[in-house]
């Protein structure tokens, strides 16, 4: 159990998991309309231990373990939001969210528009995503791209400790449904918690590493390998700019295009499968809005189009790696990787 940390603005070191838990605790404490609902979020303390201790602190009414009924409890979240509450529904992983896709798409995302503006759905849905932990094909999907296809919802991908700590507040304040994707391999990541999270927004991308020669665009679980690639490129005398998308819908076109207009080259790194991926959308927008600024085709580095294998060496081979990102970046600069 982690004691409540005193955030006196001093730079803390914490983990992504603890940052998300503190965010949940603040939300439950500050607004009695907020409650957490999901499989094993209470007694078990959360499949990834994010909600550990919250049941003991806030009680079974506000930290509700649910039966394995994704459609029912996600739909119940929608209904409760319509009923004036501020539910946070945790779907254990994006892989199980497929069972609730009908409620998310046909109800949560659609009600406001279809009702002519009468019924908004102030709901937050959190789910763990991504591969890299040898959980094999059915537990390793990266489907953020699917959800970013749906008008009516917002989609967030906190990749840093500050975003994990800061994004929940604005998401709960948003009158419309917000989906937060937490990459499974980030929970144990530890790092500085600057004060930035207090003014965290859910509208803009962020330049994590400024550069002049090529723009590397990525989000969530692949920010790490992309920053590693940028360091490797620096040895080759190529100064890469790394843009963390942070908000996958609506995409922050301004920041993306501003960067590409400066570097004239772009590589999009996306753990989803290449075909019809989020990377395809980002690439299309760069082609549409920065075509005349390009000195090379936009490159995409995505997961291999295979059901994610269990064996570690196969899984690593399937996932976007720094070497592939470096090669792509070099191609755009005209030095064949």
């Amino acid at each position, binding site marked *: 159990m982690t004691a409540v940390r005193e955030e006196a603005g001093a730079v803390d070191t914490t983990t992504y998991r603890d940052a998300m838990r503190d965010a949940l605790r603040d939300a439950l404490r500050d607004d009695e309309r907020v*409650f957490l609902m999901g499989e094993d979020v209470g007694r078990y303390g959360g499949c990834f231990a994010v909600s550990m201790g919250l049941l003991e602190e806030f009680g079974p*009414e*506000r930290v*509700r373990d*649910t*039966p394995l*009924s994704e*459609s*029912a*409890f*996600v*739909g*119940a*979240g*929608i*209904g*409760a*939001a*319509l*009923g*004036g*509450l501020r*539910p946070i529904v945790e779907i254990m992983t994006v892989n199980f969210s497929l069972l609730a896709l*009908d*409620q998310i798409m*046909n*109800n949560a995302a659609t*009600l*406001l*528009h*279809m*009702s*002519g*503006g*009468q*019924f*908004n759905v102030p709901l937050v849905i959190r789910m763990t995503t991504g591969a890299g932990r040898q959980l094999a094909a059915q537990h390793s999907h990266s489907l953020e791209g699917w959800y970013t296809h749906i*008008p*009516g919802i*917002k989609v967030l991908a906190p990749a840093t400790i500050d975003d994990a700590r800061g994004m929940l507040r*604005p998401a709960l*304040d*948003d*009158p*419309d449904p917000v989906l937060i994707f937490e990459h499974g391999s980030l929970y144990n990541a530890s790092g500085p918690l600057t004060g930035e999270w207090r003014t965290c927004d859910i509208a803009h991308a962020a330049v994590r590493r400024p550069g002049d020669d090529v723009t590397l665009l990525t989000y969530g679980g692949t920010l790490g390998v992309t920053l590693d690639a940028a360091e490797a490129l620096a040895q080759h005398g190529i100064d890469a700019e790394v843009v963390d998308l942070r908000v996958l819908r609506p995409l922050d076109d301004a920041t993306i295009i501003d960067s590409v207009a400066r570097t004239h080259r772009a590589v999009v790194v996306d753990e989803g499968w290449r075909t019809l991926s989020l990377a395809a959308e980002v690439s299309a927008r760069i082609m549409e809005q920065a075509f005349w600024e390009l000195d090379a085709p936009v490159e995409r580095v995505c997961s291999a189009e295979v059901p994610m294998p269990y064996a570690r060496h196969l899984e690593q081979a399937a996932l976007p790696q720094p070497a592939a990102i470096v090669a792509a970046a070099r191609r755009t600069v005209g030095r064949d990787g």
Partner: protein
Amino acid sequence: MSTVTDAPVTRDHALALLRDMVRVRRFEERCVELYSEARIRGFMHLYIGEEAIATGVMRALTPDDAVVATYREHGHALLRGVAARAVMAEMFGVVEGCSRGRGGSMHLFDAATRFYGGNAIVGGGLPIAIGLALADRLAGRARVTACFFGEGAVAEGEFHECMNLAALWQLPVLFCCENNLYAMGTALSRSESETDVALKATSYEVPAWPVDGMDVLAVESAAARAADAVRNGGGPHFLELRTYRFRAHSMYDPERYRSKDEVEEWKRRDPIALFLARCDGVVDETDMTTIEEDVAAEIDDAIAFADAGSPEPIEDLTRFVYSEGAA
């Protein structure tokens, strides 16, 4: 099956029930004409034959309660208090419609009456209904959420997930299953191993009563008792309202799945005629004429209103994809 003894019906009570049922019946009949004239488009599902259910259940609800219905919803909307004008305008696809012309026959919405709409996904409304009830429970409000669905929904996973969750968390929801024996073209006996829907419901530890859906008084009293129990913390209740639709599933339906005789057989228990017989001596011919004239006037007015409606400006196409003026 709970039916009401033949206790006498007061005049006012009789007139009110008759007016409600006739309003729905004539509204639906007029819609058939309008649809064949292509003034109403898309899909349209009629409630003719089942009017007694909406009439009976709506009278058990208060303005604070909530209603979640399905695509066969004109009757529920009208009797919940959504104006005939707004419903007709919606089917004419004009901005004066209760959903700005964006929903059509299957997606009527009205915040004022907490009418959370038609849902065109079979069983799709159940999770929303238990959610509304969950909010009431957590906020400690003595309110009921009435959730309408057909017997077809019983085959959906969401039915089982929601019955269990509602019972598990003792949520204040009134499940109203309108069992009209056919899910589009599939008879109940050809889709469910156990066809006694009320019996199914009891397996989730939810009080469940079969009700003669053609007897408006039976529906009214059962709904009143159930709603009262739900409102006072008795947990979810389930009504299996046995009924029959006199017309096709929708406007395009050759009805190859049932015989004309069967339809004629059920028409002999037309809920309006059935109730009118009960009101002998309490209600007379002139009352019926008055009701018919009032209803005809209401429908003509609704059509005129819808005809005078204007299409939603194209520039508003993307309005309300997200909330306006949001932070």
